[in-house]
């Protein structure tokens, strides 16, 4: 998932792989945000 990227020199897949990795990271972060926010708002307002 993480770690230094590969050199993007060959013409084929790396760019697409990179974009997929980026998108996956972003959605994971959205999940993290929800996992923190929703319980706090629930616990504080129940």
């Amino acid at each position, binding site marked *: *998932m993480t770690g*230094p990227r590969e050199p993007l020199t060959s013409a084929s897949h790396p760019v697409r792989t990179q974009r997929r*990795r*980026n998108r996956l990271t*972003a959605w994971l972060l959205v999940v993290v945000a929800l996992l923190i926010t929703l319980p706090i708002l629930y616990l504080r307002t129940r």
Partner: protein
Amino acid sequence: MASIPLDPAHGGHAHDDHHDHHPTGLKRWLTTTNHKDIGTMYLWFSFTMFIVGGIMAMIIRAELFQPGLQIVKPEFFNQLTSLHGLIMVFGAIMPAFVGFANWMLPLQLGAPDMAFARMNNWSFWMLPPAAILLISSMFVPGGSVAAGWTMYPPLTVQQGYGMDLTIFAVHILGASSIMGSINIITTILNLRAPGMTLMKMPMFAWTWLITAFLLIATMPVLAGAITMILTDRHFGTTFFNAAGGGDPVMYQHIFWFFGHPEVYIIALPAFGVVSQVIPAFSRKKLFGYPSMVYATASIAILSLIVWAHHMFTVGMPVAGQLYFMFATMLIAVPTGVKVFNWVATMWRGSITLETPMLFALGFLFLFTLGGFTGIVVALSPVDVQIHDTYYVVAHFHYVMVAGALFSAFAAVYYWGPKWTGWMYEEKLGKIHFWWSLIAFNIAFFPQHFLGLAGMPRRIPDYNQQFTEWNQVSSIGAFLFGTAQIFFLIIVIRMIKGKSGVRAPAKPWDGAEGLEWTVPSPAPYHTFETPPVVK
């Protein structure tokens, strides 16, 4: 910072320089996905808001020059203090450091751009509408938010529809910050140059990585809190209304779960800048790099569990007060680690005092002072006496202005030559520093005395016994304000090349990092072929 020698076979910029084709004029700025363009826009936006918030501060200080009411009505005064806070926090300081992140992170990590370049454009262009909403709320019937930047109910539930504009503005600013944070984390985790392990990253990247996690953890909570105010106002809920079974103090808990980490969202990237500048001008490596990383992470984690120290006076149980007091004081430990590491970096270094270093040293002295008064206000029995007095105002301005703003100035002088291709005029930079330093202390140091003597904050009038120190403070504030107009002149002169000295690729001989391997000004596209870091 860890050493990152370059593999000369992959030096990696000269062959990137050839395609500088991009739209010109307004279209360039509206449609750009280039991290450097977006960084530049963030920085100019931030400076504009800094001036707007600064003008509000000047009116506040003019009103407080004498006891009694002179210039503005009390209700407008309340709007000024509230908007000054919101604009400076969300409009000036945060976008400034996002601007530095946009400009410098890809250059420091050897990435061609941010991970989500189009979302980056959207993150920026959400800001101007939000700023317009926020400022225009002053001109609607009932005026803008007048309950302080913290937007406490019940006042905010009762105000006119300027409050709705403020809520929407903060929503948009928050959404922009969350998108920016996701972009920054993804860039740092996925787009580092081959060989750049996490523990070889420059400290600025580390501090931003941790800050971005804080942002995505806390910004949605703020959004939730102000959405509840919105539904309390218009949709019949009673989250914060005791008459309906709600509780206004609950808002304070939710707000400060965001609000305290927000202090570190502002401070941590500032620490990152200082951690770059001090080694560069001490000509030594950063002392204790791993401990700096762990201290930054510790501060971030602790910042999430200390929020109620902002509300010692709401009547919480003694056990709660004790917990939040000691947890808060614990933050002094990792912060102390950082301060000692900066001092140890300078120890026996070959120090020169160019403007970035002066601002970093100013930061070090004054932020430490602000941190020290932070320990004072963290003490629950003491805080009960000085809560909502000018002592608190003095404390957080030492943290925010001498901390974040001085660090932002250091960053502009340090990286400005890389952005513009020209050196700034050293003499003018030094004048700006000393002018700011002296004026800042004249403005804010007396506020400690006023607070200890009992002068309340957010009130346009005061008892005559407070007159002298208020006058000193106002004079200092006007001097500080004019120093920043001088700063604008310095920056414009740097952009226009008035110094006549072209910036070399690496203008600071002690500086380290990939950003200094590309020419100055940095070409439009950099590191399309990643450099290899050994």
